[in-house]
């Protein structure tokens, strides 16, 4: 149980930070595609009998970079979709090849945080540190390139290179989080919490802090509920992420109504969550 808490806390911090940039860049689709495609890596790794983390890492990294490189030529969303389904197709093949695998597929897709052992903690923590360090180093150029790509280019920040760096960070985050919340649900943590946070504040620093806080709260409550009810963690994570987002939107709408009634200038009201 202690392991589950520690692991989930690490995951929530990384998801909150990386997720902030995901929402800022509008890369929700990539954040969905990379973990999902990495599922094939996990299935393949278990087929040939190596550690799942290695399979996840290889597939998510190649998938992310493949999307980045191919996306330069074609339409970005199309390339993302195709890379995703191609990886999933491989996953389907691996799954049929290894026969007695159904429960494990379920736990890969939807997570199994309560089954984490203490030996799995060390690699997760190491990857998390690398991930956060990468975001810290890239912070300013990544922020500039995400908000104003043209201004970034003018200052010598290549948008393409930043995109690749960002995708690599997403791949890293994926590798460490998939065993915990599953390929399908890491995404809802990475989108829901930051999107909710951005409805409350527009400044990046507080928004990241708030995003991490919300992610932590979601994960902790989800584990507690899952422990008492025995229902899958993923269910609680998914539902609560959406709920937080709804609360954020409601708050933003309420504040907007109040400020227009007072006749306040409407300039600062950017579309919430956009």
């Amino acid at each position, binding site marked *: 149980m202690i392991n589950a808490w520690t692991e989930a806390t690490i995951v929530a911090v990384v998801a909150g930070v990386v997720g902030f940039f995901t*929402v800022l860049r*509008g*890369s*929700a*689709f990539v*954040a*969905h*595609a990379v973990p*999902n495609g990495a599922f094939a890596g996990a299935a393949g790794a278990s087929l040939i009998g190596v550690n799942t983390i290695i399979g996840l890492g290889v597939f998510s990294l190649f998938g992310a970079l493949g999307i980045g490189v191919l996306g330069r*030529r*074609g*339409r970005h*969303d*199309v390339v*993302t*979709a*195709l890379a*995703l*389904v*191609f990886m*999933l*197709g*491989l996953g*389907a*093949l691996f*799954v*049929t*090849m290894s026969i007695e695998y*159904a*429960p494990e*597929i*379920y736990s890969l*897709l*939807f*997570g199994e945080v309560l089954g984490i052992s203490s030996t799995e903690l060390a690699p997760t923590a190491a990857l998390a540190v690398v991930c956060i360090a990468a975001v810290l180093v890239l912070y300013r150029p990544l922020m500039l390139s995400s908000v104003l790509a043209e201004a970034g280019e003018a200052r010598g920040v290549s948008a393409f290179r930043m995109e690749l760096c960002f995708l690599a960070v997403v791949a890293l985050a994926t590798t460490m989080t998939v065993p915990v919340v*599953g390929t*399908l*649900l890491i*995404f*809802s943590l990475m*989108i*829901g919490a930051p*999107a909710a946070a951005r409805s409350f504040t527009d400044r990046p620093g507080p928004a990241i802090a708030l995003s991490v806080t919300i992610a932590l709260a979601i994960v902790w409550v989800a584990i507690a509920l899952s422990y008492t009810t025995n*229902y*899958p963690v*993923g*269910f*609680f*994570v*998914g*539902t609560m*992420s*959406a709920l937080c*987002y709804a609360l954020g939107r409601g708050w933003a709408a309420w504040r907007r109504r109040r400020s227009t009634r007072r006749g306040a200038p409407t300039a600062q009201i950017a*579309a919430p*969550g*956009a």
Partner: protein
Amino acid sequence: MSQSVAALFAPGFFDSTTVHTALIVGTVVAIVAGTVGVFTVMRGQSFAGEALGDIGTTGGSGAFLIGVGPLWGFVAISIVAASAMELIGIQRPRGRDLATGIVLGAALGLAALLLYFDATYTNTTGATVTILFGSMFAIPGSTVPVIVLLSVIVLAMVSALYRPLLLGSVSPELAAARGIPVRPVGALYLLALAIAVALAAMTIGTILSTALLVGPAAAALRLTRRPATAILTAISIGIGATWLGVVLAYDSYDWSSAHHHWPVSFFVVTLVFLAYLLAGVPRLWRARRERG
């Protein structure tokens, strides 16, 4: 000639009713997915298509739980999810991915719960794999009329909306200036997309359904810019990939000593991906010739 035909088609291929059903359903679905897919790619809504497919998992697992056919679950949940996305604001380009993502996350959470119930109460862990990855060889012949009927509905919707939808996809501003109700047209199109995705999920599984929707259409739009030609090309690519996929999956039984079929979905997805990559070749070649 007859020898090569015999090598391609394993014995019993033409007599098997499951193969017949798979080919019929594959063809119908490829037609619908190709038509709707061209608009999906033009409107940049691949993520919505992908999300609706994934969300089908929720419907499929729910249907499994209450004991009705998965197709009904796919269709019902897709329509609900499409309405939710429309309400949250899929029509704004900036908030679009987020609206899609939030709905997707919530629905997948629910899918996790329903699949858990499926596994606990019905003692069949296989439900997860069947719903997610599908199998054309497992489609019961009795659902064919329903699939055809739904396909006709989608095609009728798209043809009725064809011109306003096309203009709205290329330039929403121009469409609005001409008095086209852009938002209702977009919402109706999303409905058509939802049904098309549900049909695709029936053939190659919920999380792979995007391949049939987006792949052929994207390849076609790389080859031609004219919408009508693109739709026809997309349909041809889709049918080609499905048929070849069925043949290869049927043959794959003899490939390894383990003797089980490789999944049809794997072949279809891989063929579609190859078609997309190959469709980029003419342009590369032309560019190189112009350069030098």
